[in-house]
């Protein structure tokens, strides 16, 4: 798995050989530059604004200085991507109206604006010098140690060289030992850079990034994992269907065939009667197994798609059902399955509770969504929450980002609407 931020990178192997130490150095280095620019800009604006305030022209400048936290925070959040790939979203609200004035009043009233200004000041005064110091020490010290032999033969004339202005090296072995020490120190400094950059990014995130962003990424991840579960669930049902069809069902067919053949050979009598009974039982088991397999995963759905499967469900329904589905092409398997089971459940409920004499399933695929309407002319008053089995299906529908809604006034009619965002595949490909 790819590390998403510098902390994860440091806890895994191969940190020093990855791009992460360099990203950290880059983050701190650009931080130093941005911070210096910020300091100069804010100081200049504040000074000019204060001086000119007497003549009123300075007031807009002061307002600008107050708002200067916004662009700084914007840059900082983007810079953060160097070492932390989790999205950092700002905390600003969208202005209620268009125009500069609405934007300005919204921003001036927001807590986020003042937090960002505070951050910008902290950054300009304190943080960037730290960045600069750390990156300078952590990079220059080990690099100059590594370069000792080089310095010795150029600047030092092969005689002596001062390392970090602290130690004097006069022999070649000592110079090379110093270089080796420099390499080790460079590795150590890689971690120092990582830790400081990580801490800086964390501080920035606390100050100027929305906490909801973390929540958002979790929600995205949860949604994805739920979708994976639904898919796995569906794949499992298909596998069970296949295993039963090719295994138990096939064997039962062979059993009834063998029993049928045996009956031809046996003369009438008690044995023949027993055989006939066994044969009948095997036939019954076969019929029940067929129904069971169909309930687990209707093959007509994967072979012929939703309209054929819904037409079949309508055939099986105890009350007359009109099917008006205009669906050329195929839909994703998970959507087809969820839509099919919703229709089945709805038709079962209608037959059991609604007292309807007729039902209708209609719908189609429009604007990137599958729409299904299941209507009946029954007495209405259906409650989706009353444990009708629709609750479980609603979960399944929402896992696919779909929506399900029930309208059932007392006296009817009842209308169940289901929609799924989904892409239709080319009709030619499924043919």
């Amino acid at each position: 798995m790819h590390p998403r931020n510098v902390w994860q990178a440091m806890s895994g192997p191969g940190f020093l050989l990855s791009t992460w130490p360099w990203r950290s150095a880059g983050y701190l280095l650009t931080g130093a530059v941005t911070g210096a620019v910020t300091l100069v800009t804010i100081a200049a604006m504040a000074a000019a604004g204060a001086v000119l305030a007497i003549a009123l022209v300075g007031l807009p400048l002061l307002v600008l200085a107050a708002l200067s936290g916004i662009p700084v925070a914007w840059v900082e959040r983007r810079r953060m991507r160097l070492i932390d790939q989790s999205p950092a979203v700002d905390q600003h609200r969208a202005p209620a109206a268009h125009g500069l004035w609405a934007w300005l009043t919204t921003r001036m009233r927001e807590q986020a604006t003042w937090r960002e200004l505070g951050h910008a000041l902290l950054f300009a005064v304190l943080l960037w010098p730290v960045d600069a110091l750390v990156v300078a020490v952590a990079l220059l010290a080990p690099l100059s140690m590594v370069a000792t032999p080089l310095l010795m033969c150029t600047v030092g004339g092969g005689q002596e060289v001062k390392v970090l202005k602290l130690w004097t090296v006069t022999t070649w072995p000592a110079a090379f030992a110093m270089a080796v020490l420099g390499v080790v120190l460079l590795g150590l400094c890689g971690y120092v850079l990582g830790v400081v950059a990580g801490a800086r990014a964390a501080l920035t995130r606390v100050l100027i990034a929305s906490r909801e962003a973390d929540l958002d990424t979790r929600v995205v991840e949860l949604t994805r994992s739920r979708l994976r579960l639904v898919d796995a669930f569906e794949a499992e049902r298909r596998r069970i269907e296949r295993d039963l069809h090719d295994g138990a069902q096939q064997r039962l067919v062979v059993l009834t065939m063998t029993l049928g053949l045996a009956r031809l050979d046996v003369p009438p009598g008690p044995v023949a009667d027993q055989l006939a009974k066994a044969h009948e039982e095997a036939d019954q088991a076969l019929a029940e197994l067929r129904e069971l397999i169909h309930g687990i995963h209707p093959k007509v759905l994967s072979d012929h798609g939703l309209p054929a499967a819904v037409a079949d469900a309508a055939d099986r329904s105890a009350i007359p059902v009109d099917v008006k589905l205009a669906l050329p092409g195929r839909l994703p398997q998970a959507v087809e399955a969820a839509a099919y089971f919703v229709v089945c459940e709805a038709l079962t409920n209608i037959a059991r509770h609604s007292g309807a004499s007729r039902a209708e399933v209609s719908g189609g695929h429009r604007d990137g969504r599958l729409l299904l309407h299941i209507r009946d002319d029954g007495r209405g008053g259906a409650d989706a929450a009353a444990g009708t089995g629709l609750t479980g299906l609603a979960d399944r529908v929402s896992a696919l980002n779909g929506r399900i809604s029930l309208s059932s006034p007392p006296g009817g009619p009842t209308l169940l609407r289901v929609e799924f965002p989904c892409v239709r595949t080319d009709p030619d490909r499924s043919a």
Partner: protein
Amino acid sequence: MLLREGLIGLLGRCGHDVVAAVGDAPALLAAVEEHAPDIVLTDVRMPPGFQDEGLHAAVRLREKRPTLPVLVLSQYVQRTYASELLDSGDGSGVGYLLKDRIGQVEDFVAALCEVAAGGTVVDPEVVRQLLRRNRDPLDRLTAREREVLGLIAEGRSNGAIARELVVSEAAVGKHISSILTKLDLPPADETHRRVLAVLAYLRA
């Protein structure tokens, strides 16, 4: 596989020659080219995909040789599968049976011969599903007429229907013409045409 061996044994016992037994759809098409059999017996589902390759192979065979009788064995009651087959060619010499029927050895072999002779056989369970669809025109039929309609769709002759319902053949004839009138179907005399007309109507 197991079933194939069983069927070879069964057909051999009943005095039929199995000229070729194959394991997938391409092999089936090739075997038909080579042996020109009297009838093809196939499963809906076949390797490698275990979708409805067998059925598609049957439909392709019928497109190439419209007079080749084909009996498809299946585990699916759904009418979609049966219609695909019945729509191939002119609909004569086709059969769609659930595998459950193999157990009734004599009936099964009779159905096989019926299809080989150009008849049309649809599984009673599939017919029952079709008749269960409470569609308007079917509401106009009496219970007895629905019963007769079901038996027609199974490919029974008037005589067989009369025996089944314990009535005279003339009475059956009267029921049939009444059904055909109520369903606005043109009268026809050949059995399989009648079956197809009824099925085509039911599928619509």
